[in-house]
């Protein structure tokens, strides 16, 4: 253990507290808002003590939004399901394509391999809006507009480069001789990939998958343009809360709470796995 003076500890504690408050305050506030009605939320000055209500959550789950102007149908649960489905499927597809590709790029240097890898990375440079216009035209011609397949395809622009580049680095860190040792002991190239390379790169693959999932989950503009209401994820669906009779703060907050829950849960779960995987010191040259 390193030695720290009491003063240093107090200063460090204060700094940490400030950082935590700075980052956590909006989330806590949103969580509180999600249990209030629009009236209590908009009260000035805002009050910390209120009578909690589950009305916002009920409205979201039943899909009936009651406003001053009347009852509105909202498809929040459908949006949430779309988010889960699109993100999970996109990451799964990206892992399926990206991990073997990353392995190939890491292990086999062939003519143009760097160029191909860089081209894939360059997809991340292009501003989404620049890509969207031609993509919309193509998607309409191909019948991919407003389909899950079309969206998952476009989401590969987000997920694939991430997974490819992160996982490639992990594969490169595994000494090639470990794989050779396995192959020479009577195993095929594919068995080596499965039994040695994949487990050793496991933490990296998990990290890349998690990151790709978060990016896919948070994506807004692709689904906004390329899909209509029934295929859109929560990020786009949240627009529905801006109604003609005003912004439904309570329901937006509840929607936010519901929509960050899956990513948060996944991050917490995967984080534990990541730490375990890395602390094993799996790869030692």
């Amino acid at each position: 253990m390193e030695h720290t003076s009491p003063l240093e500890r107090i200063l460090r504690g204060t700094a940490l507290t400030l950082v935590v408050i700075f980052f956590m305050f909006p989330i806590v506030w949103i969580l509180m808002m999600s249990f209030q009605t629009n009236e209590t939320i908009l009260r000035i000055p805002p009050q910390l003590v209120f009578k909690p209500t589950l009305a916002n959550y009920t409205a979201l789950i039943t899909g009936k939004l009651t406003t001053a102007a009347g009852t509105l149908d909202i498809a929040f649960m459908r949006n949430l399901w779309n988010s889960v489905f699109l993100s999970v499927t996109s990451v799964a597809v990206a892992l399926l394509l990206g991990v073997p590709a990353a392995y190939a790029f890491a292990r086999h240097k062939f003519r143009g391999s760097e160029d191909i890898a860089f081209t894939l990375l360059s997809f991340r440079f292009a501003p989404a809006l620049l890509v969207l216009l031609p993509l919309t035209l193509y998607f309409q011609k191909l019948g991919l507009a407003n389909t899950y397949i079309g969206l998952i395809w476009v989401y590969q622009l987000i997920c694939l480069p991430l997974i490819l580049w992160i996982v490639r680095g992990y594969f490169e860190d595994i000494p090639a001789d470990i794989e050779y040792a396995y192959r020479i002991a009577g195993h095929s190239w594919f068995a080596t990939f499965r039994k040695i390379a994949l487990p050793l790169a496991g933490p990296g693959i998990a990290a890349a998958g998690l990151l790709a999932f978060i990016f896919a989950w948070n994506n807004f503009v692709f689904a906004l343009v390329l899909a209509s209401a029934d295929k859109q994820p929560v990020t786009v669906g949240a627009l529905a809360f801006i109604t003609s009779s005003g912004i439904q703060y309570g329901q937006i907050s509840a929607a936010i709470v519901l929509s960050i829950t899956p990513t948060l849960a996944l991050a917490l779960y995967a984080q534990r796995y990541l730490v375990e995987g890395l602390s094993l010191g799996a790869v030692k040259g």
Partner: protein
Amino acid sequence: MSQSALTISGVDKFYGPIDRGVHAVQNLTMEIGRGEIVALLGSSGCGKTSTLRMIAGFEEVSRGTISVAGRKVHTLPPVKRNVAMAFEGYSLYPPLTVRENMAFALKAAKLPRSEVDAKVASIAKLLEIEDILERYPSSISGGQQQRASLGRALIRKADLHLLDEPMGQLEPQLRAVLRGRIKHFIKEQGLTAILVTHDQTEANALADRIAVMEGGVLQQFDTPDMIKQRPANLFTGTFVGEPPMNVFEAYVGTVADKINLRLPDGLSLDYDKDAFSGSVRDELVKRERVVIGIRPYAVRRSKDGVPATVSANQWLGDQTHIAADFAGGSLVLVEHDRTRLELGAPINISIDPKNLHVFDQSSGMAISHGMELA
């Protein structure tokens, strides 16, 4: 059935495009018999590890063929070559214990449990790693990892065992003990082994034959004794042997019934014509310039010898290494007694023609060793 365990013929290795890339191994041809232990000896970058990896199948063969036990293997994947290998970087599987690492290939070959356990136990005893069998690679020392890796290779039955610097990380005492045991084990089991090393002591101790490589070219492939006594060229002569062979350029002159080997600084080694055998003398007088080599053990001090000046004097506990300024260069001689010579002391050197190695001045190829032609 062929008696050859390994046949390499006309093998080239280029890193990069063929004929334009780095030519790491050049037109290598060698044949190794069953049950032989061969050392590939050379400094780093000489092509020895590339050769080993081509045999194992981790590097593509750019040109030529490799056969293991009569089967052409150079286009087969490693799994089909039936060779075992110990890696320089150990390359143990991190999630497995030492025991599991060693038993791994045996289990893959579906050997019964009891047999696997017995084999692991006997190899572990041989390599003195019985106490770490249940430990993980990350928790043991480099030397232990190296022995585990060596054990993993030796435990297998294979047509060929490839050992890449198998003892580099071991302590000297242990290394000496293990060398003997491993050689005995390999011979007893009738294995064929190829060992890559830059350590000539290891090559001498373990190998039946040594292949000396330099610059991707096989320089000489012979028994340790022959390599010492009859080096094929200047490189092998100076590379093998400790301390290294002394070499000097010399002009050959004949005066009356003498042969003079004139060295720089106006020095000259003068011999009676009869001191050389007829064939060696004929070869010598045909040439104007040669390179002469003399092992430090064969240099003698004598009153009527050629003058030199002591520049260093080390007693190593069992022998004295004396370095002397001589003929514009430096000369090392070894004496078995404790010689006390002040720095700068004048000495006189004589060299028996029976111990003289003569090399061609331009090609470096050996012309004669003592009384015999190369």
